């Protein structure tokens, strides 16, 4: 009955929110810088097989670990492999795991948390207790089983990590939704008879985007390091392929003798994380609905 009305609201709100956000993001230099860095890294990762200076697996045992030089800008590792190439290939894995696993965590976590927080009552209790139970299951056994049953596919590893990381996301989203669902505008929308999925999509989720984005940018490094931990235990990426996390964990062991093996992958990871955080903060500020009132 109130269909035409809702379309109008949707159209108005929809365009203004995202368009406003984009304008505000463009004015935030640091966020824009973050966006450029992240885009640059993704482009490099995609192009790596064509632009990498050396093969990531070809060895030169007689060369061994050498410090940075003209031939090898980042130096070489114990096997005489070019570190720049390995950092580039490692970036492919790390960025892919970061993006994929975080997306999985985001989708499941936001959906789960929103429904639990909004519907409330018994549904909420059951859904959150399921989260509690999943938290408590022995994670390593779970991963070992996945690997044994499905074989060691990298894609599966990403999904498995995402499937674990959504739990915290769900808790945070639910907490946020609990606050929002009692706000005046949500109550107004409800009194107007708008359907629940509509309210969730158009009011609740956009208004809890801030913490979601902040937590999502925090999840990216978390899943990258989790991947490193699993690979380190032998449950993840198999050599000679590598990831930033793995390169760093090996670099950390030899940092006193061959520090470049730690410094370059460490820098790559740090730059990515900083850029992501600037971008995340910028997005959060840009999407803040309250800011638009000013």
């Amino acid at each position, binding site marked *: 009955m109130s269909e035409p009305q809702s379309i109008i609201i949707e159209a108005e709100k929809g365009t203004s929110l995202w368009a406003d956000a984009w304008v505000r993001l463009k004015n*935030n230099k*640091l966020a824009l810088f973050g966006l450029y860095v992240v885009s640059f890294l993704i482009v490099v990762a995609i192009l790596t097989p064509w632009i990498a200076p050396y093969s990531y697996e070809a060895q030169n045992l007689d060369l061994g670990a050498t410090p940075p030089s003209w031939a090898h800008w980042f130096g070489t590792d114990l096997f005489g492999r070019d570190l720049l190439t390995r950092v580039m290939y490692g970036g492919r894995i790390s960025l892919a795991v970061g993006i994929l696993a975080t997306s999985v965590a985001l989708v499941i976590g936001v959906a789960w948390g929103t429904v639990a927080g909004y519907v409330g009552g018994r549904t909420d*209790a059951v859904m*959150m*207790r399921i989260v*509690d*139970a999943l*938290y*408590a*299951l*022995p994670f*390593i*056994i*779970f991963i*070992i*089983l996945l690997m*044994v049953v499905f074989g060691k596919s990298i894609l599966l590893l990403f999904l498995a990590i995402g499937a674990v990381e959504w*739990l*915290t996301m769900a*808790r*945070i989203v639910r*907490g*946020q939704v*609990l*606050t929002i669902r*009692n706000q005046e505008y949500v109550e107004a929308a409800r009194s107007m008879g708008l359907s629940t999925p509509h309210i969730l999509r158009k009011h609740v989720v956009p208004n809890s985007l*801030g*913490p979601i984005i*902040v*937590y999502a*940018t*925090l999840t990216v*490094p978390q899943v990258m*390091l989790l991947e*490193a*931990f699993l690979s*380190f235990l032998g449950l993840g990426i198999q050599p000679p392929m590598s990831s930033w*996390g793995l390169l*760093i*964990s090996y*670099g*950390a*062991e030899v*940092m*006193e003798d061959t520090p470049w093996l*730690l410094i370059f992958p*460490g820098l790559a*990871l*740090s730059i990515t*994380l*900083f850029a992501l*955080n600037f971008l995340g*903060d910028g997005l*959060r*500020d840009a999407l*803040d609905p*309250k*800011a638009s009132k000013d």
Partner: protein
Amino acid sequence: MIRFTIMRLLQAIPVLFTVITVTFFLIRQAPGGPFDAEKPVIPAVKRALEAKYNLDQPIFQQYLSYFGDLFKGDMGPSFKYPGWQVEDLIMSGLPITAELAFYALLVALVIGVLAGCVAALKPNSPQDYIPMSLAMIGICFPTFLLGPLLVLIFGFGLNLVPVSGWGDLPGDKILPSITLGAAYAAYVARLTRGGMLEVLNQDYIRTARAKGLPEWVVICKHALRGGLIPTVSFLGPAFAGLLAGSFVVETIFQIPGLGRFYVQAAFNRDYTMILGTTIFLSTLIVVFNLLSDLLATWLNPRLRQQYSGGGS
């Protein structure tokens, strides 16, 4: 409020039951048994071992007898360290890990809340970027890197603190606490900054400021209360995560805590130990999640109203 707490505690029973059941059957699906070793065990010896630990019975029978013993407070002997009961092993590691996690959380909160508040007061200015970038270090330096790095600088370079141990030498608790807490400091800082930014735009803060209250009163008394909600709902899982995730720090610093048992048990297929630590940790998670929900409710007047309304 009390009713809410009791309800949640009652809900914990099916949660724990599910966790135990799923874990019990899950761990037996993992390849390799607790007694597999490089040199194969003589069959007669293996049979004797399996009989000793009831592994020769049908699995459902084992499941029932495990529950029977559990209700008597008996988690059974560890398979890897059979001279000890699982509950003894947990109790030997728990005080150490709890202390470590507590200090780490303190480090995380102090650094994180401070950095987050300072940053939120002047967003998108150097006052924002500098503390937030410092807090980011905790994320960019994962535990397995930060630990050895701190040891190198403060242990060997400056010769200030011991390089390993827990409670053996004066000052040996400092580096592990910072190492474990650093990663969480960054999370707390980001969540606090986000939460504070939300709150600082709210009307009641403007009212408080308009009333001419000193800024620190506005921050500490009014803004922090609402701004910390995201942080607080993160604390429950964080503390449980610190307890379970102390494995790397405990290994790097030779700390005889619970984290080492928890991870090693999975690799040793130490069934009773896996179950024992899982039960223990899931109880902790339930309790801490409840506590952080209660705290979040208390901090948020709207929710408080709602729960007390629902309770009557």
